């Protein structure tokens, strides 16, 4: 006789379903409560690691965000902008203005290309060195996420000369870029942009790649 069967087998199964259902309801309930509370504070904590969007022309509404995970206080003060869009001054440049946010901002290919052409941003390739060597956006610096986390000094000493930092990787869900962007924010960097499309999108648009010489 197996110890798993039960005169009340259906009851146990039903109980298991009930536990899963109750847990799910509580979890969703927590999320709803958290969001409500934080919307009221004009501070979407649950979404603090989600991204705003930079489209070609405009900077997104700003999701104010303070400390990151409570682990270390973000050096960048919370920024809350009420205007939904901030258009760049046309006389100045046609590049979108990048606010000093305590969170990364997503950027799409069109804007990425503009920044690249204007030399107005520092590009960071978050992929491992082998992939970087195989072809990267011209001028990009390689800063593999795995190395960055083990050597935080590299993040702190990184000097973007006040320019926005555009991080990219191999596309997809772009975890490398996101994680690196958060790590850089924690180490005090500002103006972090993430090019979610990464190399596949860049290459797909027919833009050139730069290969490192074999050493």
């Amino acid at each position: 006789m197996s110890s798993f069967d039960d005169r009340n087998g259906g009851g146990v199964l039903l109980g298991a379903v009930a536990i899963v259902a109750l847990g799910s309801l509580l979890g969703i309930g927590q999320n709803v409560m958290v969001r409500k509370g934080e919307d009221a504070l004009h501070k979407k904590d649950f979404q603090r690691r989600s991204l705003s969007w930079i489209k070609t022309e405009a900077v997104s509404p700003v999701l104010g965000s303070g400390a990151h995970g409570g682990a270390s206080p973000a050096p960048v003060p919370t920024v809350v902008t009420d205007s939904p869009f901030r258009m760049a001054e046309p006389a100045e440049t046609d590049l979108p203005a990048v606010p000093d946010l305590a969170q990364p901002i997503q950027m799409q290919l069109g804007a990425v290309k503009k920044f690249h052409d204007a030399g107005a941003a520092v590009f960071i390739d978050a992929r491992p060195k082998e992939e970087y060597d195989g072809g990267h956006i011209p001028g990009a610096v390689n800063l593999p996420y795995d190395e960055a986390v083990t050597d935080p000094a590299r993040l702190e000493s990184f000097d973007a000369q006040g320019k926005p930092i555009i991080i990219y990787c191999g596309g997809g869900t772009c975890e490398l870029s996101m994680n690196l962007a958060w790590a850089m924010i924690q180490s005090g960097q500002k103006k972090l942009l993430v090019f979610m499309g990464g190399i596949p999108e860049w290459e797909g648009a027919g833009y050139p790649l730069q290969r490192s010489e074999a050493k």
Partner: protein
Amino acid sequence: MDRFLSHRWVVRAAQIATALVFLAAALPKISDVPQFAKDIAAYQLAPVWSHHLVAMTLPWIELVAALALLLKIRERAAAMVATAAMLTFTAAVAWAWSQGLSIDCGCFGKGVSEPVGVAKFLQNVGLTALAAVAARRATGA
């Protein structure tokens, strides 16, 4: 062996141990849902749309199962849930390990750093066995 593992004290001990492990795993994840969502995403296993949903619900399921085990409310059902959860976690860890992903397990939240690897896999196998014992129908023998 079978009789020993079905002994009500053994089953009860396994239930309490499983409950404590699940409690320790659930609480840090409940307090930092976005971090857990990131940990799930790092496995590159589940579709993107499900990351937040799983991150929201899974820790609470762990918590409810743990409390049910501790308080002896539907404790066999709770142990079954725990066993199923452990099987899933073990499979996820095995997959990540086989893919050579150097990621953090995320099992107990961000308080402890636990790289996915053979140690984590064996720990999960052990916890799965523990939960399975907790799910046995106790006999007085």
